[in-house]
């Protein structure tokens, strides 16, 4: 039986100047690079496959399998692109990781690049996190200076360059094919698949795109073995992962635990829902994963557990809302986000989210009319599954799940403004003037 919390990635976050190469190496950092470079690339890929590591950025695709899809006989260069465009509402795990320990990612990138025969790797970081980018730039420079990057790394004959690339404010670039277009210096709009990036990705060359946390998990697997990794978590959801708890809890924060911990356990660790209040609804992995309620407190937070209750593990961003919160208001704000972030390529998403916002504003203001709940679901039906990428599906998921669990609250929007049913000041952490009219 493993311990309740199992810090691996976060184990060194509190050490003195943890972001420097010196501090990272002092806790055993960069040992895994030496180990990996003595293995063959295929052995490294097999090790990651055996470990059962699955993507930590939302989709949960097996990481080692993704690597093995890179065709060996393709004459083009191979590329590794790390997705550090963390923007899914509620998600806040990769940024603290990169702030505190950017070398964990650098080390993981070296090993992953070696495994897929890549000599130029990129880390695409959202632009709105200046200090994270500073730390990453410095870590890469330190790694060059120490001989972990550049030519003939540790005398192995293997060469690798890493480029730190800042985005410019677009949630859609977290979608892997939009990210590639953005990294090619274009508007960040998703591509139709196939071909998949493993075959034709960056510059139409074989490309592996992985989340920060997925790649950062690789050094520990190389160092400790696939059995060690698999001794944490469950049969199909192996290993440790970072859960981010936010919202109406006494102590929000990051918790690294074996996959399969429950929200009830995490709430106990974080001092529970704020005093005098109770849980109303929550997201398991960001706003694109269907919301759940108190009845799901004991469902394991792993890929299968969340799938089994009609949601998704997503990014493990647990946003907790108590009984003071209006579901209608929250849903509106999420859909406003999707409307703002829709890249405009696919009509159902571009137009549909605009219409959802118009309708949800009426619900919030108590000006919806009989039948509008069905109209809302009807519009969702016209958006979901009808666009190139998953942004539209995420937008729809938060609406349909909110209606499924709280239909009567939407129906109350036929007559009563949300801010009368749920005075907004009660949800805030400090005293705020009460809302009495429609917001612009």
């Amino acid at each position, binding site marked *: 039986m*493993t*311990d309740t*919390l199992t810090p691996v990635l*976060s184990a060194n*976050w*509190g*050490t003195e100047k943890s972001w420097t190469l010196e501090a990272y190496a002092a806790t055993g950092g960069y040992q895994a690079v030496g180990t990996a470079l003595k293995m063959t690339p295929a052995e490294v890929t097999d090790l990651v496959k055996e470990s059962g590591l699955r993507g930590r950025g939302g989709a949960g695709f097996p990481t080692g399998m993704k690597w093995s899809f890179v065709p060996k006989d393709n004459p083009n260069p191979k590329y590794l692109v790390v997705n550090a465009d*963390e*923007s899914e*509402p*509620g*998600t806040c795990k990769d940024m*603290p990781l990169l*702030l*505190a320990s950017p070398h964990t990612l650098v080390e993981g990138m070296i090993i992953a690049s070696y495994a897929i025969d890549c000599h130029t790797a990129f880390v695409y970081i*959202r*632009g*709105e*996190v*200046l*200090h994270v980018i*500073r730390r990453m*730039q*410095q870590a890469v420079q330190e790694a060059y200076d120490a001989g972990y990057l550049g030519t003939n790394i540790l005398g192995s004959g293997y060469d690798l360059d890493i*480029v730190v*690339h*800042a*985005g*410019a*404010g*677009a949630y859609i670039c977290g979608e892997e094919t939009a990210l590639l277009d953005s990294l090619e*210096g*274009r508007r960040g709009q998703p591509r139709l698949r196939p071909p998949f990036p493993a075959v034709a990705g960056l510059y139409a060359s074989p490309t592996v795109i992985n989340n920060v946390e997925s790649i950062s998990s690789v050094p520990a697997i190389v160092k400790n*073995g696939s*059995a*060690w990794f698999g001794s944490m978590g469950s049969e199909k959801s192996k290993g*440790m992962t970072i859960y*981010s*708890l*936010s*919202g109406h809890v006494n102590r*929000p*924060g*990051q*918790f*690294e635990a074996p996959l399969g911990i429950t929200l009830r356990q995490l709430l106990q660790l974080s001092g529970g829902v704020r005093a005098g209040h109770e849980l109303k609804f929550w997201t398991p992995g960001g*706003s694109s994963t269907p919301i759940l309620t108190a009845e799901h407190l004991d469902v394991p937070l792993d890929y299968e557990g969340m799938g089994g209750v009609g949601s998704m593990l997503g990014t493990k*961003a647990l946003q907790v*809302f108590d009984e003071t919160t209006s579901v209608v*208001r929250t849903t509106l*704000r*999420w859909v406003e986000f999707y409307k703002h972030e829709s*890249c*405009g390529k696919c009509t159902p998403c571009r*137009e549909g989210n605009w219409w959802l916002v118009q*309708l949800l504003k009426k619900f919030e203001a108590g000006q919806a009319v009989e039948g509008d709940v069905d109209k809302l679901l009807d519009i969702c039906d016209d958006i979901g599954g009808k666009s190139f990428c998953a942004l539209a599906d995420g937008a729809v998921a938060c609406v349909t799940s909110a209606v499924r669990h709280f239909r009567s609250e939407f129906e109350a929007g036929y007559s009563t403004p949300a801010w009368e049913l749920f005075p907004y000041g009660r949800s*805030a952490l*400090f005293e*705020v003037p009460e*809302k009495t009219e429609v917001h612009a």
Partner: protein
Amino acid sequence: MSGHEFQSFFGESGEVDMSDTTTSIDEATMSELRDLAGRYPQPRSALLPMLHLVQSVDGRISPAGIEACAEVLGITTAQVSGVATFYTMYRRRPGGKHHVGVCTTALCAVMGGDALLERVSEKLGIGPDETTPDGTFSLERIECNAACDFAPVMMVNWEFMDNMTPQKAEQLLDDLAAGREVHSTRGATITSWREAERVLAGFPDGRADEGPSAGRASLLGKSIADANGWTAPKPEEQK
């Protein structure tokens, strides 16, 4: 729902202001733009960083900046404009010395972000996407900035300002306006939006060692694990 007035989906995002042709781009800037283009297997990949550099020099995406990028990359100005108008971090009008963001995506909004935006807006006398007449502040209603365990969150020049309250926000604005030294809660000393843009372009400012390794919320799980003696399994316990 019929009979609503037509409203452009892209609202304020508009085009680049071609009427303001002022620029500070010189040969040194051109050489830095070429440097950026040389960092990638294919030069066009440098376009986003190059546009960050244009902003740091001209305080906005300027017509001259667009021409400079097009010239260095050998693409058309229309192609550059198309990219510059897609991403929200690129400004079509001059921003303030300090760019202030208030998160109003669902979780921050509910926890007080809406009220923060109102207070900041009132104090500065400007709405979102506007700049104060003296050029000190510009304001933006930002989307989720990946700091939800520190909600409600504000940003100044893309540095974290965690766990904000209306009082803290007012103090922050007063300090910035008075030119006092201000530190990000999980970052460096606040410089200016233009200096921040230069770092984003790929020219480090040597401030990576400032600030803490992590905020308290980031360390919460680790500190609870330590208090309980919880760790990951030891590798030697495995076969």
